């Protein structure tokens, strides 16, 4: 039995009754609040992750704008915020954008979509996945609490600073646990015939992403352990005050920040293939490009606060210079895919392409640092621009993913108009935000979280950057409104005519994802008819 021409339900119906799978007594799943709080269904856990991350992302965006307005004159704590609050606001924005927003939101999307894409009936270790969310949520709540009582890095209340270090560690533990679940699902829960080279690109990109997180975030955890012990016991190992933030700032900076943007590449490839209803040419190159970009996102060695010389090492500069290449390869493959079919401008495609273009700009900005000398641009607004571009690219990809798989994630088709407009607004906001920052960085303006005095005439640039940040926030709000604004109707399970396994099940998917056993997979696009004799699926 193969799944080349028919969805699993139809193909499997003949044997479903004879398997142990269908002998399971159907029971009513818990509903209401118990169905949410006690659930270990990967779709429920994923939705919880997404919801919590969007709320925290809103807080992160608002604090970013507040910090930006305060910094319009080029100094911190002299206008809108006082000198003690301003660094707290800025560092909350910087750390929460990655740890409390992008990473958990992408993990949530992955938890919903990846098991469906690889034909798994559940995520690996479903209870661990649920535990990862609740661990993350408790950690995130305590982090916000710590900040709210003056306890961020360099905060004025000692116990609250300890709480911040511990709760941030808890957030990382939660994310690591979730990463193990997602990566294991791709590695060990694929149906027969779905070799790793046949895994959909989004699932492959999430495998790369979660593995890179598993290989880098523990370093952050180690730093936080030392930081906690140091601060709590007054050992004086790390600098106190606002400089404490330098120990954790690497998470949002090149090269580590790219680890948050790896799914961009997988999403655009899946979006292009689905929108054009054609096969992805040269899957090997695509998987290689995503894998290479993931490797270039390993930044755990670049703890410049501990070893400043790392920024000058050839490997660091080489990674920065090479980062645009995988993005260019993916863009080329997207072009070939679209050329091979009749693409429709779906939200997934539009958002994916815009996210990739912004990511390309981000990598080019990052690649410029070695020419300038990394330490010259370090701590300037140039670095901030690079981080902003990368993180907004990841945000656009997140939005595109939520719209593309809205029938799977939310059980309803989202507004396509909003799905195309929101990424445009986000991309425009990213450019309006980052271009003035980059120019300011070239003139030597220090980063918002760094020391230094204001440069003359910097107000206009900072003002435009704040407007860009406002556009990004507006785009995010528009995206959320478009997701929740449409009433549930009789939605088609597959609004796009997709070719991968997630489109072979109901929307929203049943508890065990597929009604029966997933039949043997014989091609990377199991729901597409074979195109030619030399098709990949023919040799399976």
């Amino acid at each position, binding site marked *: 039995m193969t799944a080349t021409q028919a*969805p*699993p*339900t139809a193909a499997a119906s003949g044997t479903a009754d004879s*398997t*142990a*799978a269908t002998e*399971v*007594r*159907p*029971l009513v*799943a818990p509903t209401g609040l118990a169905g949410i709080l006690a659930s*270990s*269904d990967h779709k429920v856990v994923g939705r919880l992750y997404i919801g919590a991350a969007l709320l925290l992302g809103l807080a992160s965006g608002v604090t970013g704008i507040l910090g930006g307005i305060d910094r319009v004159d080029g100094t911190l704590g002299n206008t809108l915020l006082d000198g003690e609050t301003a660094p707290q606001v800025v560092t909350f924005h910087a750390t929460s954008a990655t740890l409390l927003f992008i990473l958990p939101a992408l993990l949530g999307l992955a938890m919903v979509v990846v098991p469906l894409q690889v034909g*798994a*009936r*559940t995520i*690996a*270790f479903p209870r*661990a996945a649920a535990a990862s969310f609740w661990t993350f949520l408790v950690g995130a709540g305590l982090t916000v609490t710590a900040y709210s009582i003056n306890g961020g890095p360099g905060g004025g209340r000692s116990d609250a600073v300890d709480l911040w270090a511990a709760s941030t560690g808890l957030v990382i533990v939660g994310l*690591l646990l979730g*990463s*193990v*679940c997602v*990566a*294991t699902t791709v590695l*060990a*829960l694929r*149906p*027969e015939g779905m070799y790793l080279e046949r895994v959909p690109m989004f699932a492959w990109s999430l495998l790369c992403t979660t*593995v890179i997180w*598993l*290989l880098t*975030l*523990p*370093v952050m*955890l*180690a730093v936080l*352990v*030392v930081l906690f*012990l140091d601060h709590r*016991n007054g*050992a*004086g*190992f790390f600098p106190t005050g606002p400089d404490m933030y330098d120990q954790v700032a690497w998470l949002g900076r090149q090269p580590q920040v790219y680890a948050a943007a790896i799914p961009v590449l997988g999403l655009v490839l899946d979006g292009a293939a689905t929108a054009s209803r054609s096969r992805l040419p040269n899957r090997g190159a695509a998987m290689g490009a995503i894998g290479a970009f993931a490797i270039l996102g390993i930044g*755990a060695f670049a703890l410049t606060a*501990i*070893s400043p010389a790392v920024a000058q090492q050839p490997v660091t500069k080489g990674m920065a210079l090479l980062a645009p290449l995988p993005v260019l390869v993916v863009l080329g493959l997207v072009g070939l895919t679209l050329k091979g079919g009749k693409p429709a401008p779906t939200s997934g495609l539009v958002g994916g392409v815009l996210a990739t273009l912004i990511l390309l700009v981000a990598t080019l900005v990052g690649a410029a640092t070695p020419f300038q000398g990394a330490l010259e641009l370090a701590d300037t607004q140039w670095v901030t621009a690079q981080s902003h571009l990368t993180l907004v690219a990841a945000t656009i990809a997140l939005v595109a993913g939520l719209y593309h798989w809205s029938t799977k994630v939310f059980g309803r088709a989202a507004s396509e108009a909003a799905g195309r407009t929101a990424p445009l607004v986000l991309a425009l906001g990213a450019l309006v935000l980052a271009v003035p920052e980059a120019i300011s960085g070239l003139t030597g303006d220090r980063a918002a979280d760094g020391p230094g005095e204001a440069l003359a005439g910097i107000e206009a640039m900072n003002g435009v950057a704040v407007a860009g940040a406002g556009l990004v926030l507006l785009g995010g709000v528009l995206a959320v409104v478009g997701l929740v604004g449409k009433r549930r109707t009789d939605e*088609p399970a*597959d609004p796009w005519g997709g070719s991968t396994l997630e489109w072979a099940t*109901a929307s*929203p*998917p*049943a*508890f*065990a994802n*597929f*009604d029966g*056993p*997933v039949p*043997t997979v014989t091609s990377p696009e199991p729901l597409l008819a074979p195109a030619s004799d030399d098709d990949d699926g023919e040799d399976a």
Partner: protein
Amino acid sequence: MSTATATHDEAAYDLVPEDLEPGVARPRVLLVGTALAGAAIIVFFAGLIGLYLRVRHGVITGPAVDGEAPVWFADGQTLPLTPGNVAMGTMLLSCISMQWAVDSVKHDDRRGAFFALAMTVLFGGAVINATSFLYTQSGFALSGGTNDAGLLFYAVTGSHLALIVGALLFVVIMTVRTLGGEHGSHDREGIVAASLIWYLTTAIMLVVWYAVYVTK
């Protein structure tokens, strides 16, 4: 298109292995997950021990203090080797008992498996005891301010103690499951996964023992 069918959690999870065609190897989900978690643990300790070694190297190769060669440990701070050696030796012994447990499960020897796992847990407890004793002998005072050596010593060894506790919990869970008949020659995945984490814990201890206790 398929229709949604609500099924109970437990039932749905049990579907995973049964879905496979006869003759298809059962996916080693727990082993893969354990390997990934193990990789994260290795990176965590690589970061901690790397920081310890880098800072220590910076201190002992740094400028003289008051005309005297710089030292890593301050006056009153010492690391007696005996408790560390005892802990290391006990940990190595526990690996033998752990492998014994794996082998017993392979041969459906539940009594032997239980005995071996109980010994492993006992050895683990002894290592915690030896390390705690070392803390009382070392002269490092964490509270009330300490130097870099004391801070990083507690960060590295304390984290490893936490790892031992976590690994012990894993072993205990697998012991209970083995007693319940879940693991046997038909399915050794759980006990092998527990042994994987235990060996990793031992390997990390070997590095800590050499980098922190022996070379000081």
